């Protein structure tokens, strides 16, 4: 059972890991050559829903998810904002 109010919420670390899945090359054939490009840096700014759960001993668990519903309702969910900067690491060294 999820520790968050809504089971669709995931831990913040999983959310960040999902956003960092950009490790692929964009390839294009040109005559007899292949041109490849990769993402150097990504800056993501997104509204998100958050669920901050507190257990009996005061420990905090942060659950988050991108906005789930797109239909306007009388009680709109609260949208927080998350901004992430993800940079390339080639062979463990920053470019």
């Amino acid at each position: 059972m999820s520790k968050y109010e809504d089971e669709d919420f995931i831990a913040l670390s999983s959310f960040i890991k999902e956003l960092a899945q950009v490790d692929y090359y964009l390839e294009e054939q040109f005559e007899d050559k292949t041109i490849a490009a990769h993402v150097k840096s990504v800056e993501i700014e997104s509204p998100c829903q958050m669920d901050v759960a507190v257990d009996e001993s005061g420990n905090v668990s942060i659950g988050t998810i991108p906005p789930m519903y797109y239909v306007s309702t009388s009680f709109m969910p609260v949208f927080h904002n998350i901004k992430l900067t993800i940079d390339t690491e080639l062979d463990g060294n920053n470019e």
Partner: protein
Amino acid sequence: MATTNRSWNLESFLDSLIVELDKARETLAIKAINKPLTYAVKDVNLEMQLFPSFDGNDVRFVTAQPGQQGASKIAIQLGSITDQQIRKTTKGPTTTEDVSIEVIDEIDDDTKKELRKIGVTSVNDLDKIQKKRVDIEKISNKKVNYGKLANLLNKARRTSNPPVIKNVNFNISRSGTMMQVEGSNLILDTKYTPVAVVNGKLADLKEATKDHLVIDLSNAEVNDEENELVVVSDPFTIYKVKLDLKKKTDESA
């Protein structure tokens, strides 16, 4: 069971946020072992809608719920920091010879809070402040009394490092009779002069170190059977040893 919409303090939230970020970074670092092209999280900026409350001591927050208006906005920015920067800007952890003020029950919560505000978290921190002749009462608005506190902290430090006697030897020669005591933490604080009493009479303490005591027994009466050694090493420590010479001789024979 964790429940939502319960108030939390910023420290717990940041702890959790950093753990989550570390988890994400660790996964990406593992991925980097096999894949030459990977990504690292450089910065995280979180803007949250919250309702803060202040109970006179602590500020706590509740996350805004659907339909709630007028929430405050708090922005948390976490940037990358290298291990060298961490070493430069943070204190090392409390060592085994030091005592954290958190574990001392005799110090009330208000005093602990005042000490934390001025960066004192252990007995050694307080010693450093005393050496610089800082007026701790003035800084803490007379909430912290140094003398009282120093005694409590020294007592706590002594409790966590009790004296241990491992061996007692009698050295009888023409020049005099000496008792040698070996152990650990026999003398902890050199600012006090230790005192030794043998069979109720004050004895001359020739040498006194952390792991070694030499007591001159020339003026003391040494009995064949029961002898008693009492050492006062500081205002918080008295240790008494019963020495049965005859029994010891019998056993060794």
